[in-house]
């Protein structure tokens, strides 16, 4: 009973709520079918490296079937439906996600490695909210401000990443469907399962076959989808490198494109910040979802006069983070999504050390199996270090300092990226001054990593173009 001996007992979420099939086919024209070439790949639980399922690898013929099915649905069924009817289908999907929330959350944490508290409290509710929000737009598009008769574009090819598998599927499908387009969705190779469960929900919701098709596979499947001539619009979320390849690949085709790419966001803490909340914001900014977040606050810029205070508070706080079993309800930091990503993080961290930055992690026991990386803070970082320039996409924070607001802005903007930024200060006029000057699509002032379907999200410069969410997000799927 002595103080200090209180350790939380394991509190694992029950895994048996979700039934994972041994094999998954492609979701084409309303049903699950085997891939033409019969090839498949294994998706792992990154926390244990245990295989979860064999998933179909879609080839060119499958992509063609999917696009053809989507084209048919666009021309004959979904594309002909009045907005009010589309709305009802989307409301059904929103409700069904909520009904099966626990199932989605557990499956997401198993396939992705993210903590159950995040899949349960963030990914799944936001995915449902995204469908609910966009459902309401379906019959109100003429009021969206894009002219009197906004029309859908056609078949949308949507390629999504592994960091928020279900949520990104919702971000892509909901606005596309609300505006009357049909979809071919390509989930990430390492995280296909929740998109396939969503396909099941969509089938149960009774959407006309072909309205949504889910083709699983690796980058080559995505490339096939991008270059298929039947696709009128491409929406991609992922790395800047692949985004550039896609933009180049569709050059001259007239295909519409939106890109949501990488980031290297500055999280700027002024000396008059609400320090405890700023520390929470820093933690949430970079350690949420293991730092696998394109808008992660990966560059912490602290005003020099409070740098020591903030760092000591931050380190004290990081010591309380709980890393481990993603299904444990008390886990704060889950598994790195893949071996490949772990290697990338490890490599960049090694570069940070080699370049002379000081590496620090709280005492942290890493599980023996699976892909893990401890929360890591680099101090003594300068703008020229690779860890201050390149997107690490992992739980690694680079700390820099500044003296004046001008210097903070200059450093924050000194990057080819421009997705997001954070500002912490109690001074209202300074918040607005900063918000005006930071070159980023999302500015979180005195908060970080907040998302909402009504709030447009997307980048400046090499972080991509186009917005997702809100009225602004509809433009990506309308021929106005």
């Amino acid at each position, binding site marked *: 009973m002595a103080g200090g001996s209180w350790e939380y007992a394991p509190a694992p979420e029950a895994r048996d709520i979700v039934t994972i099939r041994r094999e998954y086919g492609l979701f084409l024209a309303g049903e699950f079918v085997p891939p033409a070439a019969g090839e498949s790949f294994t998706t792992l639980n990154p926390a244990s490296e245990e295989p979860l399922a064999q998933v179909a690898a879609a080839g060119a013929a499958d992509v063609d079937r999917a696009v053809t099915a989507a084209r048919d649905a666009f021309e004959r069924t979904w594309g002909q439906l009045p907005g009010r009817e589309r709305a009802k289908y989307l409301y059904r999907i929103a409700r069904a996600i909520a009904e099966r929330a626990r199932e989605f959350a557990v499956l997401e944490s198993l396939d992705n490695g993210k903590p159950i508290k995040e899949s349960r409290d963030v990914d799944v509710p936001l995915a449902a*909210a995204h469908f609910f929000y966009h459902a309401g737009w379906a019959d109100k598009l003429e009021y969206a*401000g894009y*002219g009197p008769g906004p029309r859908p574009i056609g078949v949308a090819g949507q390629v999504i990443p592994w960091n928020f598998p279900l949520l990104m599927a919702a971000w892509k499908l909901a606005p596309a469907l609300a505006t009357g387009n049909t979809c071919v969705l390509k989930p990430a190779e390492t995280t296909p399962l929740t998109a396939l469960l969503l396909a099941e929900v969509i089938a149960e919701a009774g959407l006309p076959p072909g309205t949504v098709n889910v083709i699983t596979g690796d980058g080559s499947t995505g490339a096939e989808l991008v270059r298929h001539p039947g696709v009128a619009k491409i929406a991609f979320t992922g790395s*800047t490198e692949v*985004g*550039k*390849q896609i*933009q*180049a690949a*569709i*050059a*001259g*085709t007239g295909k519409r494109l939106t*890109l949501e*790419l990488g980031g290297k966001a500055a999280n700027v803490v002024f000396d008059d910040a609400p320090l405890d909340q700023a520390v929470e914001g820093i933690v949430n900014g970079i350690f949420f979802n293991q730092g696998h977040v394109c808008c992660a606050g990966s560059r912490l810029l602290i005003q020099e006069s409070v740098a020591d205070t903030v760092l000591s508070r931050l380190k004290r706080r990081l010591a309380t983070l709980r890393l481990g079993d993603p299904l444990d309800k008390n886990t704060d930091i889950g598994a790195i999504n893949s071996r490949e990503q772990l290697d990338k993080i490890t490599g960049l961290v090694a570069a940070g050390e080699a370049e002379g930055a000081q590496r620090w992690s709280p005492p942290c026991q890493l599980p023996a199996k699976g892909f893990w990386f401890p929360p890591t803070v680099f101090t003594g970082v300068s703008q020229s270090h690779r860890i201050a320039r390149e997107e690490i996409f992992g739980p690694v924070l680079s700390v820099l300092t500044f003296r004046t607001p001008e210097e903070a802005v200059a450093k924050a903007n000194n990057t*080819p990226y421009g997705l997001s930024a954070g500002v912490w200060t109690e001074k209202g006029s300074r*918040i607005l001054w900063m*918000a005006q000057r930071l070159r*980023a*699509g*999302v*500015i*979180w*002032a*005195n*908060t970080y990593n*907040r998302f*909402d379907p*009504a*709030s*447009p*999200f*997307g980048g*400046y*410069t*090499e*972080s*991509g*173009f186009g*917005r997702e969410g*809100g*009225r*602004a997000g509809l*433009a990506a799927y309308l021929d*106005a």
Partner: protein
Amino acid sequence: MPDRARPTPTPRGRTKGPAVRPPVPDGTRVDVRKTYKLFIGGAFPRSESGRSYPATGPDGTVLAHAARASRKDARDAVVAARKAVPGWSGATAYNRGQVLYRVAELLEGRAAQFTAECVQGEGVSWAGAERTVTAAIDRWVWYAGWPDKVAQVAGSANPVAGPYFNFSVPEPTGVVAVVAPAAPSLLGLVSVLAPVIATGNAAVVVASEAAPLPAVTLAEVLATSDVPPGVVNILTGYTAELAPVLAAHMDVNAIDLTGVAAGGRAELERLAARNVKRVFAADGDWEAPPGTARMLAFLEIKTVWHPIGI
């Protein structure tokens, strides 16, 4: 007050052939010929390459020797534009509207000159040229009214599910390269340029290769208006030479390929992908109402969150 919307055509303007440089009749004064230069950072340099090319009428008559901008001129124009971005995008929208309206006033005063240049460069009738010139002036007036409205049309307050105030505002993307359509030379140019700068961007324009003269005259108007140096930079020369430089330039944020024939766009779009440029191209009826698409193409939506608490 004379009806300035319908300037009296000069006899010279109606003639075919070397209209801007008529032979000098005996006993009259020798006219002063204009040198058509580039417009970069508020100055009128010759091409650093020392090159020029003949700007001809449709019948092949040489109207003038326009500067043939080089890759380095394009680079200099981008530098000038980048330098102008903070001041121009940071100016109040009201101020930008005032400045642009002033340009319209000056354009009106030069209507006859523009009309003459269009007639000579495009071979259209005086009435036809006059129609597009007045449409261009009216379009400029239309855009002059937009700076302090576009944020209200393209922005929003977003009702998020939580104790946050959340708003979205459009901001200029930065430096926009514009390949102006070949014709109508002034109306086309104004239609692609005005939306770029009305929204607070700085522009590097590749003028119509075939009919560059109105673009240079427009530059003269801009230089004598209150548009800050570098906000508009105009290059004359070969589109095929300049457009790839701008499309590949890593400090250009967006490119409007309207003036590039459809077949030529693919390669430029590929180059534009190097730094994820925003690419826009829209062909169409220049005399139709333009809508907001050209402005929205060069705006970024920025969304700001802040908690609501005590």
